[in-house]
């Protein structure tokens, strides 16, 4: 590694990553389980209905964390793809490939729960407004990335092509975030991440925060687990190739 002195250089070593994963994985799985237990309990049994939306507001506790994670996962993938393209770090190159299905699942959950919420509240399963359309584009970016990476016989070429797609797709992230402010949309504007503070009552913020924590720990666990699998797979392939030669 050219910048082995830096922090990235130190953790970009797959051996060190595997050692770290042994500590992180059990903690992350346990934390995710605890947060999901507490979050789901509060979300379904110990939080009030909404003054307008009634009980359907509980869909928010799945929908919103899933949407945040869909964006978060994509941003981390694009950042890793950038580092991988420029500095050729092995872990950074493998990271996007490892977590792409996780991000696609978060996006899918966000779209499905949003649809189930839209029908009773708005009166439509789906509308082509700027927010919904840009999130659908995000889902296609995830799926397109996975297909593209696997479309090459040479794994490295696939990863490089995928990295280019990820970087080009970053443009979609601010469009998703600000679509509800820039254009008239059926989807309402942001409730939490906004300039003048959250517009969600604190009795509803608690389950939302717990579920957000649960999704984050789940993501950490899945990311470490899948990245470790990618490293093992790469090592197994290298061993097999050496055996043939």
């Amino acid at each position, binding site marked *: 590694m050219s910048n082995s002195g830096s922090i990235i250089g130190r953790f970009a070593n797959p051996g060190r990553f595997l050692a770290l994963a042994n500590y992180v994985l059990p903690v992350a799985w346990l934390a995710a389980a605890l947060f999901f237990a507490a979050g789901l309990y509060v979300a379904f049994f110990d939080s009030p209905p909404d003054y307008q939306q009634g009980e359907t507001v509980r869909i928010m506790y799945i929908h919103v964390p899933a949407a945040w994670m869909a964006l978060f996962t994509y941003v981390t993938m694009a950042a890793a793809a950038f580092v991988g393209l*420029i500095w050729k770090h092995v872990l950074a190159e493998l990271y996007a490939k490892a977590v792409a299905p996780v991000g696609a699942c978060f996006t899918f959950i966000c779209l499905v729960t949003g649809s189930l919420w839209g029908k009773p509240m708005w009166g439509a399963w789906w509308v082509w407004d700027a927010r919904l359309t840009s999130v659908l584009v995000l889902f296609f970016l995830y799926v397109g990335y996975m297909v593209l990476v696997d479309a090459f016989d040479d794994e490295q070429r696939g990863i490089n092509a995928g990295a280019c797609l990820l970087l080009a797709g970053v443009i979609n992230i601010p469009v998703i975030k600000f679509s509800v402010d820039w254009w*008239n949309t059926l989807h309402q504007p942001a409730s939490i991440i906004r300039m003048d503070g959250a517009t969600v009552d604190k009795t509803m913020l608690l389950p939302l925060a717990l579920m957000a924590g649960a999704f984050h720990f789940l993501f950490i666990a899945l990311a470490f687990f899948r990245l470790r699998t990618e490293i093992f797979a790469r090592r197994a392939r290298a061993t097999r190739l050496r055996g043939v030669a």
Partner: protein
Amino acid sequence: MALNKKERLQFTLLILCALGLATAIALFALRKNVSYFFTPQQVHELRTMDDARVVDGRVFRLGGLVKPGSLEKTSHDLLIRFIVTDDLRDQKVEYKGIAPDLFREGQGVVATGSLQKDVFVATVLLAKHDEKYTPPELAKEMKKLHGEKTGDPDDKKAGKPE
């Protein structure tokens, strides 16, 4: 590509900047088409400019708040009449059918339909809710305190001319 690290960095950043700029320009050019609905004020402006998108009979979407006190239910045929407002301008709307549960006075709505002279005849009616989430008791108390309407305050912002 036989580029070194520094060249790869410069090349990638250059491409990203170009892409960002291109997208910004494209979105700016599309800004009117990307909107899901027009507010009554926007409809008025487009009408005065003889814009083809809001001529009589042409289908488009109208969004805003149901003006409090304007909802009229007729006894036959599920026909309702109400006024959609953005606090700048009012638009009379007629809709025949079952309105969504959230539909009420003061609520945000998006109606699909077309203008017949000065009445907007809607064929689809969707409810638009605001970004506030509050337990019912608290909302009742706040309403008592401020005399606040439970509408969508953000639609006022959307009423600004583009």
